[in-house]
């Protein structure tokens, strides 16, 4: 007997992501799924965003790590609420893990920053109910990463090139990196920042403010 199924393998993840989305819509949050390699500076980028937006907006950070809570401890020093998810064996957050922490969200937040597990491959395939994905590429990683990990850069609406303060010491070519990103995603919105010096965050924060204002309406 042959039965035609024609169902996506990740159908249950997609359904759960939609339910998470409904929850986030109800509290009117802008939810960013932040993805990058280990050491690309995801936590430092998040810290800079928090410093510049926390006076005006209510921010929550959901931290995804295989083990431990180093990042959420560091970020809670900035006096923002954090929720830790430990994925244990999994290399990415998925919609189920995210849904399990939703009951801990007891008040509305304007901005929810989800720091995914450090990885350029797996997190790209799993929606969690986010508004969109933000990819972080740091200059020491090399400008070839969008070529090697095309899916993430294709799907991310925003790409942040971090650690630009190191450019004088590296062979990283910003122009080439931009071209590689745009080849995978012609509509990508690219920002160049240094979390260490704070350079470039003005433009990124202005962009986020306009996104948050759009949500408020």
């Amino acid at each position, binding site marked *: 007997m042959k*039965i*035609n199924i*024609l*169902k996506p*393998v990740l*159908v249950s993840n997609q359904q759960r992501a939609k339910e998470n989305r409904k929850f986030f819509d109800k509290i009117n949050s802008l939810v960013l799924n932040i993805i990058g390699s280990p050491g690309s500076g995801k936590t430092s980028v998040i810290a800079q965003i928090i410093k510049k937006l926390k006076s005006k907006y209510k921010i929550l950070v959901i931290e995804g790590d295989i083990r431990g809570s180093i990042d959420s401890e560091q970020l809670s020093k900035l006096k923002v609420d954090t929720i830790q998810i430990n994925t244990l064996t999994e290399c990415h957050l998925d919609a189920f893990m995210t849904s399990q922490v939703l009951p801990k969200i007891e008040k509305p937040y304007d901005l929810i920053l989800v720091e995914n597990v450090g990885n350029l*491959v797996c997190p790209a395939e799993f929606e969690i109910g986010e508004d969109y994905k933000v990819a972080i590429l740091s200059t020491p990683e090399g400008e070839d990463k969008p070529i090697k990990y095309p*899916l993430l850069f294709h799907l991310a609406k925003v790409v942040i090139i971090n650690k630009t303060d190191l450019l004088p010491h590296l062979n990283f070519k910003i122009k080439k990196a931009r071209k590689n990103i745009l080849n995978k995603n*012609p509509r990508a919105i690219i920002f160049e920042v240094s979390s260490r010096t704070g350079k470039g965050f003005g433009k990124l924060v202005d962009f986020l403010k306009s996104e948050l204002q759009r949500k408020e309406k």
Partner: protein
Amino acid sequence: MHEYSVTKSLVDLCNQEAEKHKIEIIKLIKLRLGKFTGFSSDAINFYFDYLKKGTRCEKAKIEFFEIPIRIKCTDCNYQNSIEEPIFLCPNCGKTNIEILSGREFYVESIEGE
């Protein structure tokens, strides 16, 4: 390594569908896998051998159908399959590219008794 959870979803989906259609033993799973996904058929097969044990999938084999990346330029209507996912129109150089296929990852059918 994310194929573990993906393969778990695959086994769960096939078992649910088999139960619904009263198939006790699944013998064949036909899977469509686009070339622009992050999934590897080797890794899926590796985890499948482990995850299928004790389920309706235990005797099943997976047949993979690879789907090429096909694009269409909405400016000049150029259509073609591409090997590398570069989203610039090879014909007119513009970037208004629509992906026609390549992102699929779904169970087409199951066979069994």
